[in-house]
Every structure is written in structure tokens, then in C-alpha cells.
């Protein structure tokens, strides 16, 4: 587990990251979301040691995160980072060597990853001759090729079509199931679908953090009711806040769980009860909730 404790960064008088603490559990995809300027990139750069923190620290499995340990991480910086005018395999081999692999090992690991991404025939091509999606694949290969101890990925999926995202996520889950992965994204639907753990940042502070399921459970529970012929009557019930009614279907928020019984009984008394389910909020709804 990678633990971030009290990371702080100021630019002049502005504190852009203010005592940020959260955990990136091993074996989970941790989503890192927040509006533009919330401090995601600054936080990730501090975790990677690219930017010095004015306060706070990062620990890996309880021990301090040394420069040597950090060098084993895989990192995708904001706006990516590779040499546009150099051949793909060459630069992957170079990065692998810098990560402490032998030249042979670096080249063979790179070639294997390129094969895996169906880019085997592009190994000798210059990076900027590839499509944006393929460039992003190479970028991810660069982060993975030295079998990293953790992954810090700043917007790794931007520019990828949904299929490409899926295959990338499959690969991450297959290759990196034993390490902490932090990825930032502003595509909330993607975060909803992918992450097992969520950290929400707003104006330099953590406003929500937890496993995705816990966060959903902890959110305000809603119920969906489908009753014939019409669900309009739910408005008159005490303790029920109606969010939406559309013919036979209604989405309601209940003051407490005991109201659920009364609501169901009333529905049965009035006619047919087709459906009565608890609806958990999506992570994007939680995000909107906590950052409101």
C-alpha cells in the first residue's frame, strides 16, 4: 500500500495542495478525481518526487519512499512524455535501462509489450508517426516494462476510445494486480466503471476517500418504485422526497429505512407493485455531491 500523508505544496502565497492524505491500496485501481486545478497533478508529481513537497511524506508498505524505491515506479506524466522523433523500441529500451534493467532485458520486455499491444510492426517507427491512441499505448508500455512496484498515471486514458480503454484496463488488471495503482481522470463514467477505490480532491483538499462500494453504500440511499397505473400518489406520503416521477415509475429519497415498509404497503394497497429497489448512487453522483 502506498500511503500519502499530509502532502502540502504552495506556490507563493497560494496553497495548491493542502495536507492531502489518502491511501492507494495494493491490488486496486484507485481513481483520483477532482475539477481542473484541484491539485491532482501537483499531488502526483510530489508522489513521484518530481516536485518537492513543502510538508508531508509518502510511505510504501509502511516504510519511507526512498529515491531508489521511487525509481521502480511506473509513471505517466500529465500530457504524456516520450521522445516524438525517436523510434518506439529504441526509447522504450532506453527507459528500461534507466530503470535498472540490462539492455537486453529492456529490449525484450519492450518488444513483448509492443507485441501485446499489436504494435510489433511499429517497433522501428518514430513515435510521432503513430496514431494518438497508439502513442498512448506506447506510453503505458513505458510505464509497465520494468515491472513497476507501483503505478502513478496522470490521465492515462485520455485520447483512447472505449475499446482501447478496456484492453488497457485488462492489461493493468492482469499485470499489476499486486501493486498500488493511482490514476487520475476527469471522465467520471470511466472512473465509475474502472476504479475500486476513489479519492476526490477539491481545491487542494481530500473531500472523499474510500472503496468504491463503501462510498456508494454510505451515500444517500434512493429507491425506485414502479407501480400501476400511476405513481403520482407518492408525493402525498410523509417522509418521502420525490426526485422524479415518470408515469408508473418514481425515484424517491426516504427519510429513514422504516418509511420503505410504509411505501411498499401503500403501493400494494393502491394496485400492482411491479418493482421496488434500492438504488446506490454512482461514483459520479457522489463526486458531484461532495464537490458541490
Amino acid at each position, binding site marked *: 500500500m502506498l500511503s500519502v500523508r499530509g502532502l502540502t505544496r504552495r506556490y507563493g502565497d497560494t496553497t495548491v495542495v493542502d495536507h492531502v492524505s489518502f491511501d492507494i491500496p495494493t491490488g486496486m485501481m484507485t481513481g483520483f478525481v477532482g475539477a481542473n486545478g484541484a491539485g491532482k497533478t501537483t499531488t502526483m508529481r510530489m508522489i513521484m518526487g518530481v516536485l518537492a513537497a513543502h510538508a508531508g511524506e509518502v510511505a510504501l508498505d509502511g516504510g519511507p519512499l526512498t529515491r531508489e524505491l521511487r525509481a521502480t515506479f511506473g509513471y505517466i506524466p500529465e500530457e504524456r512524455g516520450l521522445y516524438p522523433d525517436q523510434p518506439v523500441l529504441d526509447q522504450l529500451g532506453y527507459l528500461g535501462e534507466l530503470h535498472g534493467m540490462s539492455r537486453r532485458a529492456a529490449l525484450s520486455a519492450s518488444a513483448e509489450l509492443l507485441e501485446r499491444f499489436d504494435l510489433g510492426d511499429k517497433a522501428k517507427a518514430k513515435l510521432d508517426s503513430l496514431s494518438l491512441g497508439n502513442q498512448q499505448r506506447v506510453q503505458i508500455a513505458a510505464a509497465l516494462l520494468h515491472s513497476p512496484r507501483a503505478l502513478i498515471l496522470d490521465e492515462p486514458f485520455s485520447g483512447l476510445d472505449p475499446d482501447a480503454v478496456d484492453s488497457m484496463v485488462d492489461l493493468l488488471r492482469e499485470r*499489476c*494486480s499486486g501493486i498500488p495503482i493511482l490514476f487520475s481522470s476527469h471522465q467520471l463514467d470511466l472512473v465509475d466503471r474502472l476504479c475500486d477505490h476513489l479519492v476526490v480532491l477539491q481545491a487542494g483538499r481530500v473531500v472523499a476517500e474510500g472503496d468504491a462500494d463503501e462510498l456508494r453504500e454510505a451515500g444517500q440511499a434512493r429507491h425506485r418504485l414502479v407501480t400501476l397505473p400511476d405513481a403520482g400518489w407518492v408525493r402525498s406520503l410523509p417522509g418521502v422526497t420525490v426526485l422524479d416521477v415518470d408515469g408508473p415509475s418514481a425515484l424517491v429519497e426516504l427519510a429513514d429505512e422504516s418509511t420503505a415498509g410504509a411505501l411498499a404497503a401503500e403501493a400494494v394497497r393502491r394496485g400492482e407493485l411491479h418493482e421496488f429497489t434500492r438504488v446506490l448512487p454512482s461514483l459520479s453522483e457522489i463526486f458531484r455531491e461532495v464537490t458541490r
Partner: protein
Amino acid sequence: MSTQTSLSTPPETGRGGAAAPRGEVRPPWLVVMLHQISVTVRRRAFLVSTAITALIIVAGVVAFSLLSTKVESYTVAVPSQEIATIVSEAQATAGGEAAKLQLSAQVESDPIAAVRDKGADLALTRTAEGWSLTGRDSVPTSAQAVLGQAVERATIQEHAGATGTDWASLTAGSQLSAHLLEGDAQRTAMAAAVGYVFAMLFYLASILFGMPIATSVLQEKASRVVEILAATIPLRQLLAGKILASMIVSVLQLALYVGVGLLALVLSPADLGFTGVIVSTAGWFLAFFVAGFLILAAVYAAIGAMAHRGEDLQSAQVPIMVVLVGTLVAGLAAKGQALVVLSFIPVVSSVTMPVRMLQSDVPWWQTALALALSLATAFLLVRVGGKVFRLAVLHTGGALNWKQALALKD
């Protein structure tokens, strides 16, 4: 979330851990250096410019040796064996078999006709008024000069013999030998020529290899590769690898050019003299070159790191260009006291000290002091440039100037 597999490939523990199972793990600066060298030498512009320069040097060498070994040879038609002797005496004074002018006599009944029929190049004949050298459409001055002397000597000897005086007593005390009061025109000319070559080599190498350091730093900054590099290796090692790579390539290239030039000097049949001075100065020039180049490399790396876009480099390198052009001019034009002073100023000394050494014998301690000053400056600037590089290259946002860059903190 699946937890069935951990890392599918065993982690290849890097430096500091167990040795990698396959192949040898190199230190980061070496990896950077080798990568940078391979990128540089594969660049087309580099290959083309090196090939062209080498060709120009080879062509210069060939032209030089052709010119210096070119032999003019003429057949001189003469009416009698007696006059043929004058031609062979002329040949003897011109330097015998090894001379660049070769005259061979050929006895003809009608020498003028032989020239007209292209049987001979020149005709040497005696007329009522004196002597005559006849050519078809021109008479080469070299042949006219040597033959003229020989004819004169023969005629004087003839007259002297008639009055009973011999040639030796007649010409005794008439030898003219040259003495110099100040300097040595030949050495000054050599110093000017070789100094020009040194100055140009330093100027060209600084531009050819300095600017690419700045552009490659800027490229890594702009493409954010530097973030990955900074997270992986200490930036000091990155900078060291980059500077070493440019230095090695430029010194190798320089050694190639200088080597070709010196080889030509040694192999060329014409003895220019001063070969010893030039070879030893070339050795010192390499040492001064390294020191001067280190200073420039550190500055170029820093301006690359401070820039935000390509255009920033152009304006940032203006001061360097001023220094470089100044160095070139100083190497070509400085004289006397000014040259002595300039030969102690770092960067400028990379050219001016070798030029001084070519012109005259410089006391060894002066050379050593100038080199030490250069190296100390290089050390200082690598430290300062390295700090600016480390801080500025990770700075996002616009271009920085030196003041802002030096004020940056981690």
C-alpha cells in the same frame, strides 16, 4: 478485483538490488551518454556535415600535395653540345633531380624549327646580340630565370677566361645571405594559418554541438520525458550523460579533423617546418578545447532548461554567440599585449592560448595557468548550470531568465 496473480513477470530488481539475470546493468549516466551518442551519430545532419568537412580536408590535403609536388619539365632544343652543358648546369643550380623544374637539353640542327614543330618546348640559341630563349607562345619565367643565370655565368666565365681571371676569384665575396632582426615571417605565417584552423574548429564545434545540447534539453522538457527521467534517475546523472556525450562526439570529430590535417602535414613532401610546434600545440588545443567546451555545454544545458519554446533558445543564445564570435575574432586578429591578456580568459583562451603558442614559445606556467583558470571556470559553471538545469527543467509555465532560474527552489 482479481487477486489470483501477482506480477506476471518477476520484478527485475534494478541497481542496488541483485544483479539482473541477463546482461550487465549500466549506471544511469552511462546509459544516457550512450543513448545520446547513438541519437547524435544517427542524425543525418551530423553525418552529412562530418563527411563534408572530412572531404574538404582530404581535398585540401590532396590539392596541397599536388601543388607542392607538381614538376614543370621542358625540353630545350640547343644547336650544340656546348650549349647543352649550359642547360645541365642550369638544372644543377635549380636543385638537380629533385627540383620542381626539370630541363633536358636536346641537340638540334635547327632549334627554332624544333620548337615550331613541337619537337621541343624551348630553344636556347646564341645570336649576334647575345642569347635568346624561344618558346611557342610563352616562355616560362621559372625556366627563363635558371637558364638566364646559367647563361650569364657561362658568358662571364668565358670573358674572365679571356682576361686570365678565374670564376672563383671573380665572384668571391659576392654571396648574399639573409638575416632577420625581428621575428620570423615564416613562423608568423604558419601561426596565422594554423591559428585560423584552430579558431574555426572551436567556433564550429561549439555551434554544432552546443546548440543540440540546448535543443535536446528543451525537447525533453517540452515533451515531459524529463518528468519520467527525473522520477527515475538523479538529474545530475542525466546532465552528466548529456554533456559527456556531446563532448565525446565533438572531441572525436575534432580529433578526426586534426588527425587528418596533421597526417597531411607529416606525409606532404614539401617540408613546411614547425611540424613539432604544430603537433604539440594541437595537443594543448585539445585540452583547452575540452575546458572551453565544458563551460559552453553547461550554459547551453541551462538555457535549454530555462526555455519554454524553440524561439526562447534563439534569444537566450545571443550572449553565447557574442562570446563565440569574440573568441573567433580574438584568435584571428589579436596581437601583442592584448593577445597575452586574452590568452588567460576562459573560453577565449581555448583559441588564443594555442595561437600564442604557435607564434612564439610561451612559458609553460602561463599555459598551465590559463588551462587551470579555464577548468576552474568550467567546474563552477557546471555546478551553477547544473543547478539551474535541475530546477528549471521541471518548471512548468513560461520561459525563465537567469535571475528567475537562479531564484528557483525545489
